């Protein structure tokens, strides 16, 4: 069987063309334009060396803070989503009535647009009439009623909490699949030896789940570095720079026509993500035979 005749390479051309022109090319160009003075006002660009990177990493601007915010967001949401997702997955692989209903509900926020979720929580976190403060006051915890996303100290934790609420069901779903792929033989052996629930979790579930947890960690890290939707919808980076992350900063530079700094920030995201992404892709295509 002539493989090249039966499986013609031109089948792949359409996908390749779109992918290269609209996805890869901008990223490659982005690296090039990071070394220029490109802006809305001058289509002719000049080489400026590392000037943009100096600006981004200079103490005179807030970009370092934005970068640190992004890393903090990534770390906190990754840990929280993994921890909560794992607890939910363990709970929802036990004998619970209406199991599928609970699983479906937990996953629900993942299928809603981040813009919608942002609006919903803007209402809930409203300092005066929001459901959160109303509920706190109703049970007598007036002191805990805060200004949430409008408070410069609490804004970032609030944004992260909303993002965790939205994303934990996704991690849970992956981990449930991971737990269900563990052979029941291990748990039967543990039951004979008189192992309790905690011991089963600690010595069977957790170690067997490590590969899956690695994947969810990488997925969360890549998501966290690229986050835009939830932050834009809730605070758009404010108050001040309290919740500004790399991608919201890119959007602001873009809106102001400061393309050079925008593309430099974007290039930084690309470089950060590709390092992490490389390991993920390597893991994902493992098991596909002669590829990796």
């Amino acid at each position, binding site marked *: 069987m002539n493989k090249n005749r039966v499986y013609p390479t031109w089948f792949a051309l359409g996908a390749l063309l779109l992918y290269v022109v609209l996805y890869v090319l901008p990223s490659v160009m982005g690296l090039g334009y990071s070394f220029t003075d490109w802006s809305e006002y001058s289509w002719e660009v000049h080489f400026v060396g590392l000037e943009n990177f100096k600006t981004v990493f200079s103490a005179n601007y807030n970009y370092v803070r934005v970068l640190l915010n992004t890393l903090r967001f990534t770390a906190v949401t990754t840990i929280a989503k993994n921890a909560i997702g794992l607890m939910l997955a363990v709970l*929802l692989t036990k004998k619970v009535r209406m199991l599928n209903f609970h699983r479906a509900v937990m996953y629900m926020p993942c299928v809603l647009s981040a813009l919608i979720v942002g*609006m919903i929580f803007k209402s809930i976190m409203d300092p005066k009439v929001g459901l959160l403060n109303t509920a706190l006051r109703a049970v007598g915890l007036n002191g805990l009623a805060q200004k949430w996303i409008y408070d410069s100290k609490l804004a970032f934790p609030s944004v992260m909490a909303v993002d965790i609420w939205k994303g934990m069901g996704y991690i849970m779903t992956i981990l449930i699949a991971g737990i269900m792929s563990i052979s029941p033989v291990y748990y039967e052996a543990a039951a004979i030896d008189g192992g309790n629930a905690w011991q089963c979790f600690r010595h069977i579930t957790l170690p067997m789940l490590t590969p899956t947890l690695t994947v969810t960690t990488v997925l969360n890290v890549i998501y966290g570095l690229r986050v835009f939707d939830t932050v834009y919808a809730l605070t758009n980076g404010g108050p001040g720079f309290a919740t500004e992350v790399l991608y919201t900063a890119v959007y602001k530079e873009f809106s102001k026509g400061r393309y050079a700094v925008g593309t430099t920030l974007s290039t930084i995201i690309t470089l950060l993500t590709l390092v992490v992404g490389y390991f993920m892709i390597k893991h994902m295509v493992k098991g596909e035979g002669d590829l990796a």
Partner: protein
Amino acid sequence: MNSMVKRRQSLITFGVNALAWLLSLILLAPLLLILFNSFKTSKEASAMALSLTANPQWSNYSVVIEKGKLGTTFFNSLLYSVSSVLLCTLLSTMAAYVMSRNRRKLHNFLYLFIVLGIAMPINFVTLMRVMQVTKLMNKKIGIILLYTATQIPFNVFLIHSFVGKIPVEIDEAAVIDGAPATGLFIQIVLPLMKPVLVTVMVLTFLNTWNEFVMPLYFLDSSTKWPMTLAVYNFFGMYFKDWNLVCADIVMTSAPVVLVYLLGQKYIVAGMTAGAVKG
């Protein structure tokens, strides 16, 4: 002794069920809040309480459809989603099929090159330049091609691993019977790929319907906006009328919730693919 063990067991069962319900309610409360408030009057809704209203205002919905220009934006969203689903599924399937079956060095390299896109962030600033040069800026077709391009990597990944599980012997039999390359693909292999194609189509639909960043950057006129962006804009103008905002949110989310409930099995299959491997 035995009865004590039994009692302890039923106590645990009760605790586990109660916890599951509590967590589900935490997840559902914000969504119910929106649904309940969408039927209230503006004054009732301003309290933003999680309670049902005595006299539901169905007119909220018709007011929003008119004021929020939901007709136009609904059809925009539908156009973007359906077009991207069809185009992206077609291109991804053809590419993944050839790369999975014809595993020469070139094909393996191209596959890894495309799949790397799953992790790659988009540079919106230079993408604007590319859109201008290719005359796709501020055009509906431009947005459709963007949604297609950005979702090719994950879809190729999903389909590639599925095709790998379809026996090659099927192809060989068809080739001996004289089927041409396109005939083999369309008549023999494509029908066998139905489960993964449904997954790909459902996921592409949900992602495209929910997305708003591309239009934010690359569509200047609100007449081309999808529903998500329109609802956010509506929120900016009518933030005092929470009942209307809630009705708008409900209508914008209804299609994805519906697709989710119908295609849950396929979504979970797609979401867990690649993440869980022995």
